[in-house]
């Protein structure tokens, strides 16, 4: 086993887990809505990107369009549908599942079973007899940047602090002058935009078809469960843990075992740590501070 191979594969896996999960985690962690249409939101981002690129937009611009399209869609869906379902967790799951169904088939009707794909930019990093796609490796810093950006947004800006206050106690927040409806809308739009960003980033390296969303769903859910309630810390930690496990097991035993090991990890983590990895970190921190 080559150490650089392992490192690059870890970077690749970490980025995938984090990017697949982050939009779901924001919407679930901040608003308590399980968006079963999350994969389809990612698909919309990828379509926005690919279609714009095919229309002649340079890739970065096309990606920005993909993010924007998904965010706008999130805004419309939140205002028309999701906001009626905030205190109805399970109904919101059925509704978002139905939305996923409509989005998948709608894209199929509009654009057919496949659209021309864009190719992966930036070439490769070659080392010895091996090489790795530069673009895939660069997704790691991008994922870290996204996490960092969210950290700043939710802890260093007035908006983020108000949003967190809204999540913790909406009535009190409202009574202190926070327009909580707008906070929910904004949070949902941010979650959608993140899903769109994931779609945009993976559009040049995955196959863009109407059903592509399902390939993100498993990783996304597993990461959210393993991460626990704290969105950022949880997503980062589960990205790290699951990315490592996937890379190691895939290398040692093959892709299938990589996937199974990830899923089993999720089950074990939930059983041992009911609040996920975040819970573990909190416990350790409290113990350290207590002493």
């Amino acid at each position, binding site marked *: 086993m080559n150490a650089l191979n392992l490192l690059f594969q870890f970077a690749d896996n970490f980025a995938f887990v984090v990017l697949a999960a982050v939009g779901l985690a924001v919407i679930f962690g901040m608003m308590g809505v399980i968006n079963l249409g999350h994969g389809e939101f990612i698909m919309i981002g990828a379509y926005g990107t690919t279609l714009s690129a095919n229309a002649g937009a340079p890739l970065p611009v096309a990606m920005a369009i993909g993010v924007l399209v998904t965010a706008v869609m999130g805004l419309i869906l939140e205002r028309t549908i999701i906001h009626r379902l905030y205190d109805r967790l399970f109904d919101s799951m059925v509704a978002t599942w139905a939305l996923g169904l409509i989005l998948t088939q709608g894209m199929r009707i509009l654009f057919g079973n496949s659209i021309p*794909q864009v190719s992966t930019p930036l070439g490769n990093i070659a080392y010895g007899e*091996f090489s790795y796609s530069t673009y895939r490796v660069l997704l790691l810093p991008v994922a870290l940047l996204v996490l960092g950006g969210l950290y700043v947004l939710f802890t260093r800006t007035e908006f983020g602090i108000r949003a967190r206050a809204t999540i913790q106690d909406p009535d009190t927040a409202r009574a202190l002058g926070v327009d909580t409806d707008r906070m929910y809308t904004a949070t949902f739009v941010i979650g959608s935009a993140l899903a769109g960003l994931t779609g945009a980033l993976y559009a040049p390296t995955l196959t863009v078809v109407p059903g592509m969303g399902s390939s993100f769903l498993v990783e996304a859910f597993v990461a959210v469960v393993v991460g626990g309630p704290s969105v950022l810390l949880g997503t980062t930690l589960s990205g790290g843990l699951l990315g490592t496990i996937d890379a190691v097991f895939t290398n040692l035993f093959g892709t299938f075992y990589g996937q199974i090991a990830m899923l089993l990890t999720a089950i074990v983590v939930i059983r041992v740590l009911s609040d996920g990895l975040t819970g573990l970190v909190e416990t350790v921190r409290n113990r350290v501070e207590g002493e």
Partner: protein
Amino acid sequence: MSGKRSGLSRRSFLATGGAIGGAALAGCLTGGGSGEETVKLGIIEDRSGNFALNGTPKYNASMLAIEELNEEGGILGNEIETFAPDPQSDNQRYQQLTRQAINEENVDALWAGYSSATRETIRPIIDQNEQLYFYTTQYEGGVCDSYTFCMGATARQQLGSVLPYMVENFGTDIYTIAADYNFGQLSADWVRVLADENDANVIGEEFIPLSVTDFGSTINNIQDADPDFVMALLVGANHTSFWNQRTSAGLDVPMGTSTVMAQGYQHKRLDPPAMANVYGGFNYMEEIPTDRNQEFVSRYYEKFPDAAYINEEAVNNYFSIKMYARAAEAVGSTNQADIIEELEKGMDVSAPEGDISLQGPVHHMTHNMRVFRCDEDHTITVEDEQQISEQFLSETVGCNLRENEETTQYVPADYYEEADATQE
């Protein structure tokens, strides 16, 4: 738009007229009663869900064949009716729709299903009802079934055309990557059998779950093994991601395949040079340069101007519907047992791929197999061409449906040491 619509209605008017004329004629010949018989074909192909990409061309080509037949007076003078639901890539729904087609719609013959899983799901229902069934996807091979006609090329036919070519041109060390399910496993078995027959070695093998989209480690593994060429037996939308990823990682080993391009037209969907230096062994690609094919292609796009591609399976639907019509005319009725008996005599078929023939005793086709090469610009060229018959059932297993009734699927592991993975 309006012009096209009126054109269509004129054509269907003509078709109806032809059908009435034909019906009258058939009535005269057979003497009453049977002229009122209708012909109904079940076309159950995915137009939504996971396999819509592969199923839609199959549906289109079936409709084209039926429209052409109807324009010529239908079958036995009757206009062909269809039962054409959308099973939405859902096998459980396939079961329901197959039962509906057989028991409620009383179809005279059935075309259904893209994946092997689908075929195996509905085959018990088919056999129980003794329903004439055409399965048109290229597949792993080995189905010896009295009611099922497998119109696609088998893995042995597909790989048998491309693998020897690859060995001859690139070397003897083979690395196989295959979809981790029944079809992929059996295809990999065939790669081992054919490698042995061609004095080559499989130096590495990797099975990839259908849900995998990330091929970083696979690419590293291939680089580590350093083969002369790769046999890529990948299936489905997720696996299509492999091509962009291998190109951007700079993996430039030549690759042979029996699955990509001819089914999912990756060379049309992906940006060049993702499919550069991929060699496929198929019975059909839209790009076959013959006049017969180009004429067929233009008929297809005339009817479906927005269609994306004509895949291998679509053409198999097309020629097998025409073949069924000829058998029914020869028998003089739509009696399924009689038609099966007629087909078992064998038949020469003029298909878009060339002149091919039905091997009656095994219900498979001798196909005109070509090696197609995809270059840097995604231009397809034909490198090699030969007739390859179905050999596994007819020669190795000794299946003969003319004499014995059977509904078995045979696997290579029971006949070849090389194919038995548990022996290693």
